[in-house]
């Protein structure tokens, strides 16, 4: 399906890199490296140079921590979105938020996508997306409350749950007026899931792709990679790329990442093996 992300459209065979840009002092991977606005802006400039089509700007870390109210979240992201919009008109700007109030403010500032990592916790977010013509990422959390860790969560079938919840969310957004080509589903690895759940979602991602909704995966350096390989944050790139390859083979369209260059190469390689993309330049044996 052709993808329309706010002001931008992409062909139905395009894969997209969504680079994570944290405006937080405490996110698990970068630990505040882009908390300062100038550092965050440098990060945007870098990932654009590296070829990212999308930046995903977040003002609150996913894990539990200090309470950040909507006013503080807006203070962290709204002006920054406006600055990125002005400097990079061709860049897709996504904002990682579950709050409709924040969604409205960032859309007014120029955001193209509302990435609701918490699966519809605020039911009015879809109305904001519809009003501004923004795209939405519809995630599966198994009903988890925002900023909570999974605790003894079990599913009869985690993939069925992910499909039912994300497709249901997409259909709610559609009914609210969000364009069909602006809706993306995300199984949300690690969110409301233990490592076995995230591995199963990875293994069976083709079932989500088969729904026909474009699929986003957010795998980068997550705990399911760390637990699988018994590696701390900072040593999970190889495992992340292995999971990325599996999701790419299944047909995931959007990849939310810390490492743009490595992920782009992995996705392009797998996409080409799958016969969905030609090699960049082939001459070996063909001279």
């Amino acid at each position, binding site marked *: 399906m052709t993808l329309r992300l706010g002001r931008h459209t992409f062909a139905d065979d395009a894969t997209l890199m969504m680079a994570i840009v944290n405006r937080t002092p405490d996110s698990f991977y970068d630990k505040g490296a882009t908390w300062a606005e100038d550092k965050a802006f440098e990060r945007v400039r870098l990932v654009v140079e590296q070829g990212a089509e999308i930046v995903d700007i977040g003002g609150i870390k996913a894990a539990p921590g200090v309470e950040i109210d909507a006013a503080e979240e807006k203070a962290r992201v709204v002006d920054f979105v406006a600055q990125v919009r002005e400097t990079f008109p061709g860049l897709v700007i996504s904002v990682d938020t579950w709050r409709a109030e924040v969604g409205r403010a960032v859309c007014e500032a120029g955001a193209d996508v509302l990435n609701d990592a918490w699966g519809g916790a605020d039911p009015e977010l879809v109305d904001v997306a519809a009003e501004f013509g923004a795209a939405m990422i519809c995630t599966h959390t198994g009903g988890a409350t925002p900023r909570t860790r999974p605790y003894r969560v079990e599913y009869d079938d985690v993939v069925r749950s992910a499909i039912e919840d994300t497709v249901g969310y997409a259909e709610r957004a559609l009914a609210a007026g969000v364009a069909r080509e602006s809706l993306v589903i995300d199984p949300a690895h690690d969110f409301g899931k233990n490592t076995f759940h995230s591995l199963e979602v990875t293994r069976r991602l083709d079932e989500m792709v088969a729904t026909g909704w474009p699929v986003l995966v957010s795998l980068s350096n997550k705990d399911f990679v760390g637990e699988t390989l018994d590696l701390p944050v900072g040593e999970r790139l190889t495992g992340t790329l292995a999971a990325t390859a599996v999701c790419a083979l299944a047909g995931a369209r959007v990849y939310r990442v810390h490492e743009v260059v490595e992920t782009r190469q992995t996705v392009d390689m797998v996409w080409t093996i799958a016969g969905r*993309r030609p*090699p*960049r*330049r*082939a001459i070996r044996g*063909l*001279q």
Partner: protein
Amino acid sequence: MSGEPVRIALVPGVLALLPSYGGLEDPVADLRAACLDAVAWLGPGPGVLASEQGGRVAAYLCGEVSSRDSVPPRPPAQGVVVVANGSATRTEKAPGHLDDRAVGFDDDLRAALGAGRPGAVDTDLARELWADVGGLLRLAQEVEVDPASVTIDYDADPFGVQYWVMRMEGVRR
């Protein structure tokens, strides 16, 4: 028919010209352009002198030319596409690795082609140097080439393989 005028386009049998081997970037863009111009010069429906594999290259080029919006008028001569090339052993990275005899072989073959003598080729050495000359030998049997008509449009060895695109005229023997 003996004495019938003939136009000849010599092109190399480079598989990278085929769409089935296409990438996001074209590694033989200049060569492709020269080949298409030479084949277009023949006019519609040319014959082909080539191996089976070279014939696929010729068929692709002819198809591309015929699908162009502006088809040139039929020239006053029958057209023939000859698919052939020089050695594939000109450099360390060449498909057949470096053979010190390759440059000399190609120089001699270039001179023979320019003199209208496409059959003047050492076929044993051609085999050792991975040169594709079968089409040239058939051309020599079937057409008397006018040396004054030979035009070289492309002459390079970008991958250690000697390519030529040439246009020639002659009469059928």
